[in-house]
């Protein structure tokens, strides 16, 4: 097995010629088409799954089982009138859909969707005599790239709301961007434990480190807590139910894209579902071994792809399941959950895992390390809850002061 110091795609190790460029372009185009098709299927899957849960039929007219419904909706949107509100900032109004869509496309490049991730595979595939990874690009800072792109997604939401020159979109977008920013911190901190286990930021290396059985999957290796935090924070980052306060229809009309119609709306919609697909793919890659799984007869990279798709489908189902079952949070509950529970917990858990690892390396007793760091964590939790109750007391006092009528006595 090649030791990939730089986590570089082996495709670039030999001279870069026309064939290599061709393979890269092929990968880019395939990823592009796959993303669009997967969004189409995801929208259909979500509608069908939800209607099953609610004892309805759902889309069933366009194509077999209504599978072409999204396609039909998309075509319809091309023929709808494109309105630009008169009070809007036209330049930013037109720019915002791009700012939503482009990061949504770009995040997917770090996801390895297949390759030989069997017992002793190295995650590569050989095409036309060239060894390469089944991912568009293996940036050595893959995880940071993911975080950077999801922080760019805030711009689309924020600017769309502001540029509309309308009340509800502005309220929705400020809420949404505060929410996305808050949960991004939790997202990043929960990932730190994964990096701790792998020692690399490259998504390919992280997937490769999880081969060889379920015990090596990061979800177990990091002790489930980072995965749970990531799943919650990821759902919030996507603005999906139960964290969809952004487009709480009952209070904000449609959230930041209220003023958008026709294709501009379609692009926001596309970006939203594309982000859902990508987030599931990233959860699978970082916590569930990506394409890792047993290989049987046939080419190993195809098995990798099969396992990846299977795991991806599970998480897409989980996101829809969330939407069907969980009621929406209130805004203060949302912020409390993110800042006062998820962020301190993920930071504490990261330090806990690090202490355990270092203790193991130095031959300390696991029990002692666990007790000492557990005590430290408990102390931190105690401090946190003391702070929360202190601020609560203070607010109750203030409220009592302002409530008591002035001339009552």
């Amino acid at each position, binding site marked *: 097995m090649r030791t990939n110091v730089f986590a570089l795609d082996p495709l670039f190790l030999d001279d870069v010629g026309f064939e290599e460029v061709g393979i890269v372009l092929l990968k880019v185009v395939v990823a592009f088409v796959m993303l669009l098709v997967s969004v189409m299927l995801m929208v259909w899957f979500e509608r069908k799954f939800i209607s099953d849960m609610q004892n309805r039929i759902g889309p069933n007219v366009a194509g077999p089982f209504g599978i072409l419904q999204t396609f039909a909706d998309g075509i319809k949107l091309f023929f709808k009138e494109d309105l630009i509100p008169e009070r809007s900032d036209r330049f930013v109004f037109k720019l915002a859909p791009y700012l939503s869509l482009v990061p949504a496309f770009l995040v997917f490049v770090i996801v390895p969707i297949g390759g030989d991730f069997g017992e002793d595979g190295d995650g590569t595939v050989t095409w036309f005599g060239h060894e390469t990874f089944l991912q568009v690009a293996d940036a050595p800072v893959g995880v940071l790239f993911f975080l950077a792109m999801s922080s760019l997604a805030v711009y689309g939401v924020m600017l769309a709301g502001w540029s509309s020159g309308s009340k509800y979109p502005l309220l929705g977008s400020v809420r949404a961007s505060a929410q996305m920013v808050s949960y991004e911190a939790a997202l990043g901190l929960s990932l730190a434990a994964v990096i701790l286990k792998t020692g690399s930021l490259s998504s390919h290396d992280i997937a490769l480190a999880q081969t060889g059985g379920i015990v090596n999957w990061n979800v177990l290796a990091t002790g489930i807590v980072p995965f749970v935090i990531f799943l919650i924070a990821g759902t919030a980052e996507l603005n999906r139910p139960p964290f969809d306060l952004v487009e709480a229809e009952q209070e904000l009309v449609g959230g930041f894209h209220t003023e958008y119609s026709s294709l501009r709306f379609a692009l926001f919609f596309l970006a939203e579902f594309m982000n859902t697909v990508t987030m599931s793919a990233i959860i699978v890659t970082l916590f569930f071994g990506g394409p890792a799984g047993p290989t049987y007869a046939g080419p190993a990279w195809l098995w990798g792809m099969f396992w990846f798709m299977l795991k991806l489908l599970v998480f897409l189902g989980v996101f829809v399941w969330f939407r069907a079952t969980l009621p929406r949070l209130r805004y203060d509950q949302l912020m409390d959950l993110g*800042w006062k529970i998820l962020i301190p917990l993920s930071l504490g858990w990261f330090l806990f895992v690090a202490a355990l690892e270092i203790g193991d390396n130095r031959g300390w007793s696991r029990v002692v390390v666990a007790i000492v760091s557990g005590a430290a964590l408990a102390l931190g939790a105690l401090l946190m809850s003391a702070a929360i109750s202190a601020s609560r007391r203070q607010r109750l006092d203030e409220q009592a002061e302002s409530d008591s009528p002035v001339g009552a006595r």
Partner: protein
Amino acid sequence: MLGQYLPILALGVLAVLFAAVSFVASKLLAPRRPTSAKAAPYECGIVPTKEAPERFPVRFFLVAMIFIVFDIEIIFIYPWATIFEGLGLYGLVAMLIFAFAVFESFVYLVGNGALDWGPLKKQVPRTR
């Protein structure tokens, strides 16, 4: 090095092209009959009387500020996590000092109610 980033650039260009071409297509296909009612801000049929609000609670600003702090913490934690095994106990202590300094000020912040949202539930006194 550069080679690793060119596919990302290519996909980005493709995404922009896709959006641009779709807009052109929509412009050609869609009707264009603007009226003043259509161009007004949408408020579920009510004629808008007030301008959009111009000021927001300072809390939102605060959230963005605290986010920067945690973002910077993430930026330092990630490289630490890639080499922490080589650093051993020394690295752990260095990181603990760093994390503690941020955590205790965060606790102080929470204790001062910087991250409280919305009104507290009114405690209705039980009167019979």
